[in-house]
């Protein structure tokens, strides 16, 4: 194998490895997005209905 061929082979391998990584990353990304969507649905269901009022009414005295 010439030096040129060896480098090309390495490059080829790296490209294949990279594309595998990418598809794993994409798949993982989709899975994470799906999980986040489910979580946001769940949170939407329990979140205080009038956020504006809920936040405005939460007033504390300083402590410590």
């Amino acid at each position, binding site marked *: 194998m010439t030096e040129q061929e060896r480098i090309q082979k390495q490059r080829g391998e790296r490209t294949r490895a990279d594309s595998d990584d990418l598809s794993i990353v994409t798949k993982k990304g989709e899975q994470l997005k799906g999980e*986040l969507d489910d979580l946001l649905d769940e949170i939407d269901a329990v979140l205080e209905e009038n956020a504006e009022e809920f936040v405005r009414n939460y007033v*504390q005295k*300083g402590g410590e």
Partner: protein
Amino acid sequence: MAIAKILGIETEYGVVGGPDADPTTASSIIVNAYAQQGRTRITWDFNDESPGTDARGIIGVGSLAPTIETHLANTVLTNGARLYVDHAHPEYSSPECATPAQATLYDQAGEEVMRRALRAANETLPPERAISLYKNNSDGKGNSYGTHENYLVARSVEFADVVRAMVPHFVSRQVVVGAGKVGAETDVGEAAHPAFQLSARAEFFEEVVGLETTLKRPIINTRDEPHSDAERFRRLHVICGDANMSPVATLVKLGSTALLLAALEDDGAAQFPPAPAQPVRALREFSFDVTLRHAVRDETGRTRSAWDYQDELWHLARRYVERHGGAAVAGPEEVAQILAQWREMLDGVRDDPEAVADRVDWVAKRRVVEGFQSRYDLAPRDAKLRAIDLQYHDVRRDKSLAQRVGLRPVSPDDAIRHAVAHAPESTRAYFRGQCVTRFPDDIVSANWDSIVFDVGQGPLQRIPMMDPTRGTRDLAGALFEENSTAIALVTALNG
């Protein structure tokens, strides 16, 4: 040889609602509701309280010592904790714990105490007057309340060395253990206008070292009130931390700090990285920068980000454990777990936040906040996003968002329930807990370092407990087996 890092957390909970919407009334109802469940009616003894004593020796002009409110509801629990009204908040001060994992367990037991207290209180109130409790640190309007850690430190360590060694950690640890916050609420915070910041507390700090906890809050608090033998011990009172909902974050917050304090005791302050030239500014600027890239200059001119500081401190802690074993902090497995989690969280926040969204509070909270923002196309700091921030910390399981984001546990639920009623066995909290459990009718009052008995004859008897590492099950267990009455116990202790 570093002394045992006995430690614990005191948490002031945010409170709204109640019969007259007054937070002090609501807090008293919470504490009394819990006490009236039959768990304890023993009051707190203020005899050893001296929060105005300054570790630097001299109290600076203008320093305000905190006031003690003796008339408010105040009680001792069978798990050795103190449950009381502090200013306008219900506060749970955990018992003295032997290791960071145990202190994490008793912090979670505190959440359960508040949950039970809340349930009992609300059974007596009409629904429109129901009380809500939040384990957080501010109201989003510039009012803050504390989550304070306490660590036993050898008196032989110079206070200046505590400052020298610990400031770098206290300004930077928020990258792994910050609770996160939507927006900002102080003048200095508003000027930076962050959409989201790492720490709930950082923007409230104005001094590097000082005695106050409510005004001009300092990164290092000098309150020198050891609640133990002052010749041998200090209690480092750390007021700059956030209330964590993630138990792994609590474990790493306590574990990293305890390991660094042990390293300071054994190998001195010279090994620590120099503090930022402007520590207060660094604390805030690190909090405002969710990219973690912001770097600050130290006194020698070198720049570091908060992440760089944590990386350096992690290596310091690991070297310490390799050399000395870390027995002052915990057993080998727990120490290894603390170092491993600290490392994973540190790498995660930089390289793969999703991977640590189950442990790092600010990452978990921000993920939900940004998810909502993009789902509903909301402006940064929209009321809905602030509501998410607040409700993340709701004590009630059916409301809490922290319960829903998949945070990793440290202790199983049955261990937490057990810790609600039973004290740690390897600190003096065991002695306090046993006395309160066995002889509630014979105890007049109790505090961190003593218990006062009224055994029905002669004067009141104060039993001092000046060493937090004694009064353990190993040392005192037989005493309780041999003496089934308070008078027998007191006689045996006096004999």
